[in-house]
């Protein structure tokens, strides 16, 4: 694998987060020779998602004290007299205050390791010493579990739903035979959900459970063993169905690399209770919690918001006062005001003006109904798939990919003040005309004038949904307004196992807010309002019906928010070096897409940004040439993609 890297490119992209990946795809698509590198072993940077063991390694890495490695600068010998080097940062310092907690029972934890997709056999047919080492390091060690790198696979443990003998059995949640079924798709989400309770039991637990009503408590060893079922996003976002990212995915056809599910519920938290917010026309009419009068009020107001611009008289007088005050004047019950302010407009009570509130409400309503009953989509396997999809697109058009590849420095020509090359960790000089660098790769020296904000994050694995309904397969979003003056509003996204982000009978809960203090301080008050921790006694007496979901495992951390940094604040950066920011704290992805497009247009003003590629379906190789269009990949609304000439 000691393939050598070419040393001439048009564009070098450093970092594989969403904006960098979009830029790489756009450049490659427009015929540029692109080298895309990341110093990490995985795609996505802070946009990545991890399996459970992957996340544990990530946690460990970020808890380790940044060892002050002495600043050796071997690149100095590699640059010429009329050049100057701008060293890049060696260690990612964007993550802080990582705190991990495990509440699931750890009784039987002995030799647990993550089970793979294949029946486990020793891979020792060709043992090399380095391989054995790698194997050992691949299993994650973690303080609370004595893990043994040498353990002999997954055998034992009758409770393992993954035991080799069952590996060939079908479980419907996986993607097999999918294509067939999904093409003929007829089912709605509701159908899925009604059956999934029983479905879950059948498929997963032939050997675990007798048909008890309550599923057994999930233990820590089960989480570890089923670790690859988890796809845990570092940053939690959703796609607005009319947002810039969806538009770009469709336009560029990158959407073919991913699959999506609708977010199924918008929730609100009022007076200590979680409730579902009716937001579509159908929801409002079907709602049991609203009175007839409320239904009318809400419909009237939402209809007005859809084209509020046409009725300036209704809001002009109050356009600069607070949206929350404006709502009070609109003949809405407190109940409805709460829904609109926090769950639909999702704006701050304290400082959002009427016009912005109306805009936000309108955006929400416009996104409604494009794909489903809520304005949002979630990518199966997590948000971390999206940057990778753009990377695939870049590679398909010839882009070269190197993970685990760090860059020592940028080489700048002293005269022209333009960057002309990079020197990588092997000391290889790679020339290019344009350089795109993610913010976290820039040294402290370059960023010394920049003042960064922080994002507070928590990820919980829980045993049940925050709002139990007939279906246990829901993807929900819940905004909790700030409760105290110094406390941030928190956005919660709860994912179910069919989003392919967590194992069966668990839920993955993401909490996000702009940081005021550390993640734990910011988010814990909200966590304890909604969740509880496993207690030994509780597990037997299942009497109480309104139980809070129990946290099985959780992690808190702060992430640097490098969005919205003014370029001129970066110290002495050559003009052909473009900086991409890490994830922002907003729910959508507009910021990243806007940034990527702006940078691309600056580099190549005359080129189209991510035009649709030729459709592989249009290249017909078999004789009869009667293939029908495959609706999964075609894009009805757009013009026909260009076709490759047939040979």
């Amino acid at each position, binding site marked *: 694998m000691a393939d050598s890297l070419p040393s001439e490119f048009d564009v070098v992209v450093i970092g594989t987060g969403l904006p960098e990946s979009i830029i790489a795809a756009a450049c490659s698509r427009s015929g540029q020779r692109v080298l895309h590198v990341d110093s990490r072993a995985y795609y996505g940077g802070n946009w990545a998602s991890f399996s459970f063991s992957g996340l544990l390694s990530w946690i460990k890495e970020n808890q380790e004290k940044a060892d002050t490695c002495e600043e050796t600068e071997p690149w100095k010998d590699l640059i010429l007299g009329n050049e100057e080097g701008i060293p890049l940062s060696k260690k990612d310092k964007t993550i802080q205050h990582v705190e991990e907690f495990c509440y699931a029972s750890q009784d039987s934890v002995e030799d647990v390791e993550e089970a793979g997709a294949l029946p486990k056999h020793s891979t020792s047919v060709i043992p090399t010493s380095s391989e054995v080492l790698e194997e050992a390091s691949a299993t994650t060690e973690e303080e609370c579990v004595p893990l043994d790198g040498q353990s002999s696979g997954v055998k034992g443990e009758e409770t393992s739903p993954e035991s080799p003998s069952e590996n060939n059995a079908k479980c419907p949640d996986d993607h097999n035979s999918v294509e067939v079924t999904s093409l003929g798709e007829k089912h709605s989400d509701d159908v899925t959900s009604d059956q999934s309770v029983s*479905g879950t039991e059948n498929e997963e637990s032939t050997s675990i459970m007798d048909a008890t009503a309550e599923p057994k408590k999930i233990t820590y060893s089960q989480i570890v063993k089923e670790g690859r079922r988890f796809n845990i996003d570092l940053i939690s976002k959703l796609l607005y169905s009319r947002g810039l990212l969806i538009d770009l995915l469709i336009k560029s056809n990158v959407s073919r690399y991913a699959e999506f599910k609708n977010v199924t519920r918008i929730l609100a938290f009022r007076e200590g209770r979680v409730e579902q917010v009716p937001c579509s026309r159908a929801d409002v009419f079907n709602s049991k919690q609203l009175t007839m009068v409320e239904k009318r009020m809400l419909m009237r107001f939402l209809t007005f918001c859809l084209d509020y611009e046409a009725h300036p008289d209704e809001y002009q007088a109050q356009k600069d006062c607070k949206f929350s005050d404006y709502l009070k004047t609109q003949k809405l019950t407190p109940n409805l005001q709460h829904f609109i302010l926090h769950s639909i407009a999702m704006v701050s009570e304290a400082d959002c003006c009427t016009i912005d509130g109306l805009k936000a409400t309108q955006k929400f309503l416009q996104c409604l109904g494009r794909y489903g009953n809520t304005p949002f989509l979630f990518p199966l396997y997590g948000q971390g798939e999206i940057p990778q999809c753009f990377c695939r697109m870049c590679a398909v058009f010839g882009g070269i990919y190197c993970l685990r590849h760090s860059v020592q420095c940028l080489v700048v020509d002293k005269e022209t003040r333009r960057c002309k090359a990079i020197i990588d960790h092997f000391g290889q000089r790679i020339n290019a005309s344009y350089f795109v660098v993610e913010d976290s790769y820039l040294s402290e020296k370059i960023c010394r004038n920049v003042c960064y904000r922080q994002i507070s994050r928590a990820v919980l694995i829980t045993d049940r949904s925050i709002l139990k309904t007939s279906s246990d397969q829901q993807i929900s979003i819940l905004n909790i307004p700030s409760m105290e003056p110094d406390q941030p509003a928190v956005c919660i996204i709860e994912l179910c196992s069919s989003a392919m982000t967590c194992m069966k009978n668990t839920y993955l809960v993401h909490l996000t807010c702009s940081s005021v203090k550390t993640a734990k301080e910011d988010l814990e008050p909200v966590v304890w309002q909604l969740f509880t921790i496993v207690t030994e006694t509780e597990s037997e007496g299942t009497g109480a019906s309104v139980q809070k979901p129990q946290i099985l495992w959780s992690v808190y951390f702060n992430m640097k928010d490098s969005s919205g940094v003014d370029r001129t604040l970066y110290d002495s950066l050559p003009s052909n070096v473009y900086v991409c920011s890490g994830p922002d704290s907003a729910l959508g992805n507009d910021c990243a897409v806007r940034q990527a497009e702006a940078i691309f247009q600056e580099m190549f003003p005359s080129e189209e940004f991510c035009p649709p590629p030729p459709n592989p379906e249009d290249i017909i190789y078999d004789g009869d040439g009667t293939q029908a269009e495959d609706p999964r990949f075609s894009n009805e609304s757009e013009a026909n993609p260009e076709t490759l000439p047939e040979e």
Partner: protein
Amino acid sequence: MSMEDYDFLFKIVLIGNAGVGKTCLVRRFTQGLFPPGQGATIGVDFMIKTVEINGEKVKLQIWDTAGQERFRSITQSYYRSANALILTYDITCEESFRCLPEWLREIEQYASNKVITVLVGNKIDLADKREVSQQRAEEFSEAQDMYYLETSAKESDNVEKLFLDLACRLISEARQNTLVNNVESPLPGEGKSISYLTCCNFN
């Protein structure tokens, strides 16, 4: 004509070291060409070939690595939703065989549980340069529960057989699957591609 001019659609994904002949296998099968024109790969994501097996039309969507294997940087999303994996090595290159366990680890991590994996030793036309004996490969594939086949994309040896056998196995697996879960057929893990979601419009 109906929208779906086939009875089955399967996604088959190729993996293995750079230079073992993955693209050649795909091109040979889908276009009957060898060697494939170089530049033509650019911009082509996957190849389609529809074959008929026992009177049923089976559409095979065959995905290549887009060169991301060269520096061990394949995206995880590449493996998602693959029905079958063709793990390829070059019989004249010991190194490509030695890397197989690494590839298996990737599969373990990212592929679906029920993915069918086939091990393929390519370039048997270069028999005099063989470095990996058939027996070693057979033992290895047996230990891993994989189906094994040796091919030559150049001479077109076993290439049809590789894909057609795979198609047969995929069909029988799919059948079995629908039999087992006929009631729960709405797969809970099922996402939809964006264009597919564009079904409901209201307001």
